[in-house]
């Protein structure tokens, strides 16, 4: 009468049903992402044809349009130009287009890199120190301070954006990379402290105590014993901070307008002639999403901690 499988091991049938449903959901969920990529390698007419084209001749025009600014010209004018010097030139000439000026994508993308990495470096640095402080020492009002650090995340970004906008205007920080780095550091440091405190709590105190008995000072013990032990945690925290700063939109849209603008507010503003240039937008989106896809796969095991402030551990 006993089943072939153990009580807690689901039956093969239930596994098969579960697998089917999950795979179905995963495939549906992936459709928009696959569509973004497909659109990025379509020619503009293919991208807006109806019914949507699944089979098409791939074109790199979207990527060319993203990195250059092009405009349509008469065939006579194109013919009068010197011969094309590279692939991008060739593709554009075929469609009677010439490069009219540099595109803004690269500087915006560079801003994203500078601001994301800068703020991550600062947030993780400050966060590691503070997390060690909270983890190892009796700090007066530690619980209140930790809750205060967490509560800074409850404020809608728009609400803080008004006074920060005014403050930055006074300090000359508006629309500067430094201003955005400081702002994202402040937002990320709360996550960094909470996550890293969890990681450092797990390193036995005995390690430092042993090192200190051997004659290390507290700071040496921190540097030579705790930091190496916490490397994995620090790396995971850094990637979470990086992803947040990379993806952030509200502050970037409200506080930057030109020189310090990052990619998220910029990508939607890419306009072609006669409406939005969807292949170029899709190309920008694809390039922008690639690092996040890589990080998601790398972070698989740490994901739960990162998204719940370390409140749930696996």
């Amino acid at each position, binding site marked *: 009468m006993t089943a072939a499988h153990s009580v807690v091991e689901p039956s093969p049938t239930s596994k098969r049903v579960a697998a089917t449903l*999950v795979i179905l959901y995963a495939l549906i969920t992936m459709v928009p992402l696959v569509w973004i990529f497909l659109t990025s390698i379509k020619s503009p007419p293919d991208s807006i044809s109806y019914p949507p084209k699944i089979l098409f001749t791939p074109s790199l025009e979207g990527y060319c349009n993203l990195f250059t600014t092009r405009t349509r010209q008469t065939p006579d004018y194109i013919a009068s130009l010197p011969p094309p010097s590279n692939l991008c030139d060739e593709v554009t000439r075929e469609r009677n287009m010439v490069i009219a000026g540099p595109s803004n994508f690269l500087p915006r993308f560079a801003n994203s890199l500078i601001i994301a990495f800068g703020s991550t470096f600062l947030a993780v640095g400050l966060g590691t120190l503070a997390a060690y402080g909270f983890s190892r020492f009796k700090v007066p009002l530690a619980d209140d301070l930790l809750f205060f650090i967490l509560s800074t995340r409850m404020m809608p970004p728009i609400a*803080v954006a008004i006074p920060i906008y005014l403050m930055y205007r006074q300090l000359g920080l508006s629309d500067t990379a430094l201003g955005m780095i400081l702002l994202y550091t402040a937002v990320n440091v709360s996550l960094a402290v909470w996550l890293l405190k969890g990681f450092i709590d797990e390193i036995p105190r005995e390690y430092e*105590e042993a090192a200190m*008995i051997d004659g290390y000072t507290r700071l040496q013990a921190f540097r030579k014993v705790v930091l190496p032990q916490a490397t994995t945690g620090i790396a995971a925290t850094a990637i979470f901070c990086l992803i947040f700063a990379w993806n952030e939109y509200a502050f970037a849209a409200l506080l930057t307008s030109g020189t310090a603008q990052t*990619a*998220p507010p910029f990508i939607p503003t890419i306009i072609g002639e006669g409406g939005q240039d969807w292949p170029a937008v899709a190309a920008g989106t694809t390039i922008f999403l690639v690092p996040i896809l890589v990080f998601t796969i790398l972070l*698989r095991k740490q994901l739960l901690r990162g998204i719940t402030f370390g409140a749930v551990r*696996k």
Partner: protein
Amino acid sequence: MTASHETLTDKMTEAAVRATPQAVARRVRGLSDRAIAWLFIAPTIVLLLAINIFPLFWAIYLSFTNYRANRPNAVVQNVGLGNYERVLNDPDIWASMQTTAHFVFWTIVLQTVIGFGLAFLLDRKFRGHAFWTTLILIPMMLSPAVVGNFWRFLYEPQIGLFAYAVSFLTGIPTSEIQMLGSVNLAPWAIIIVDTWMWTPYVMLICLAGLRSIPDYIYEAAEVDRASNWRQFWSITVPMALPFIMLAVLFRGIENFKMFDMVNLLTGGGPGSTTEVASIALKRAAFEAWATGRSSAFAIILFVAVFGLANIYVKALNKVKQR
């Protein structure tokens, strides 16, 4: 004999005392532990005070004035509680709060049901479950702004994949599938994208909850011949409840602040059908430049989130203690 015994204990005690961290700390050259603790924590606190708390207090101050950020040289007058009165009596603001509540409610219901369902299925640990889990988790790692912008393309009635797919499945002509342009459909367009993006988040937390239930409870239930249905409602759901509630808390706070996706998909329109609180706040602060009034609105919002979150956390703790 007693004497030697005593000296031995004394020696042991002495060695033990010397090994305790306090004793070690006393011998430490340079900085004391207290100084280090302070030195380590202070920079973070200072940064948060400068970039979070100072602006918050500035916003509180501004909320009592008629200051306008686009006229920095005008004379600033104290208007007392006038701004708060105006905000609380403004039907548009109440409408935006209602819209927000509508979004928060439906996104949480959909994400919790689908997310828990997926977690329940994934808990079966079929072959390749880790791969599919990772695939499902991708949407929540993306930038809501970039995602929102791209969904705008998918929703386009004449060229978009979404309209085509719905039309293909139901036979409704695509011209009638105006997801972002129709008053009735626009809120659902946003709810669909938010659910697509954040269901994985709820799923992940629920999965952690399900994996935390020890096997022996199910074994005991099996011995007692409890039906699968009974096991689900008496073991699975209650044991996973704290995790589900935590997911709801995080999603609730985030969706209460929802801005990026709405701003890119509809910008609050058509009319003001998708004007959530954050969009209303942005319009008041950065389009109407009513800095004082929008600060009052911001403070009211913050107090609301903070208050609701606190009440909810109390309930969560009660569930945890059960």
